[in-house]
């Protein structure tokens, strides 16, 4: 048995050391905020004034401009969490823990919004707020997984230990998500007549695609900004906890 200390002197780890990470990534915040705001202004202008109504979906196509980005984020955030989970498990990187923890509530929010906008879009097009269709159902299951992860984080007192365990669960979830998606699709087609309107029918014209992409970028920028703030907050929270613990020890001595 030979245990080497993991050296903390490499430039990469130094850059990503929690305190230093906050110091250098702070400078990114203002540009990120500006980019987010600009993209949202542009996206909303395109969505409401520059885009025509779709010949098939009518004005409800405008709901797509918030539905698609949130639906995209619901999966993108899980991807971010999974990559961070690998970072936690393989490299034991402290910032990966922080990134994982900061992403979970954001992912849950965006997934909930995707369901909400999906329901509001479904009402005029399908005539119902909720349809047990493959897409919506698997998004719902994803939301439940997000809730589970948030609950798991909150159940641990020691956040360092929690990180690796949550990482294991996040990856188990990541393996499961395609299976869930597939099974729910199978289930939905089995139980449903095929007459339901499907989005993937007509190809979308460029006049819809442009605002859609701008909105996707806007929401992604928003996520990145909030994620960075969340990571900073989490680093500070850990620092506060270790300082308080030290104070308590000094007080006890």
């Amino acid at each position: 048995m030979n245990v080497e200390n993991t050296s903390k002197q490499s430039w990469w780890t130094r850059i990503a050391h929690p305190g230093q990470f906050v110091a250098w990534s702070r400078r990114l915040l203002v540009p990120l905020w500006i980019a987010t705001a600009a993209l949202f202004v542009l996206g909303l202008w395109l969505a409401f004034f520059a885009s025509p109504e779709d010949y098939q979906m009518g004005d409800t196509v405008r709901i797509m401009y918030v539905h698609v980005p949130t639906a995209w984020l619901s999966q993108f955030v899980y991807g971010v969490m999974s990559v961070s989970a690998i970072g936690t498990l393989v490299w034991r990187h402290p910032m990966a823990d922080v990134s994982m923890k900061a992403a979970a509530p954001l992912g849950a929010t965006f997934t909930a919004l995707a369901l909400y906008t999906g329901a509001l879009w479904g009402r005029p097009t399908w005539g119902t707020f909720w349809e047990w269709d493959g897409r919506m159902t698997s998004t719902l299951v994803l939301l439940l997984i997000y809730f589970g992860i948030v609950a798991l984080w909150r159940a641990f007192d020691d956040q360092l230990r929690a990180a690796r365990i949550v990482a294991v669960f996040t990856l188990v979830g990541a393996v499961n998500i395609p299976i869930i998606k597939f099974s729910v699709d199978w289930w939905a087609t089995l139980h449903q007549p095929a007459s339901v309107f499907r989005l993937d029918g007509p190809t979308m014209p460029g006049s819809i695609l442009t605002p859609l992409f701008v909105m996707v970028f806007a929401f992604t920028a928003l996520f990145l900004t909030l994620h960075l703030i969340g990571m900073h907050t989490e680093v500070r929270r850990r620092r506060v906890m270790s300082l308080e613990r030290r104070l308590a020890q000094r007080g006890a001595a």
Partner: protein
Amino acid sequence: MMSAFTAILLRDLKLALRTGGDWLTLALFFVMVGIVVPFAIGPDRELLSRLAPGIVWIAAFLSVLLGLDRLFRADHEDGTLLLLRLSDLPLAGVVLAKLIAHWLLTALPLLAATPLLAVMLSMDPPAFLRAVVSLLVGTPGLVALGTVGAAVTVTIRRGGLIAPVLILPLAIPLLIFGVGAITTGPGPDQSGTALLLLAAISLIAVAVTPFAAALAITSAED
């Protein structure tokens, strides 16, 4: 190594049979869930036999979730789990042995109790057979996912509450194909396909679980 594996398996069985009751309670719970449903939806035989596959699986689902907490907690609390890490058997092997023991102790009693439910829910004999096969194929996957949940929450004092919440969404594919393997709808018979898919998912879960759970247990102490 093999002897360590069987020793853990046999010890878990011996402990469960000797302390008695737990596995019987689970079977009882399984039957009770099935019996309660008719009270909730009315004694309509037609409706009941149509809902029976779903009821059987939900009952199995809940029973397995209920028994999860026993899987690692006792061994963690008395230090056995830590010592098992110092043996030549890899921790994944320990988990697999405990998984098999747990399946024998939770799923087999359920299978034995299925005829009772079949009668009460007025399932016809072919449906009953399909239900038994479906449970036989699907419960290993269910127990495997539960093992991950139990491993992830083993150091949390309130873990018994949180493990089912974590595992439920992940187990939805098992539920879908488990019920699908029993139901023969009005359309073309899909139950064969469903059974194959159920077996595939169950197999994946059993194969991946020991490693994931072992990783969670090692991390829990660190």
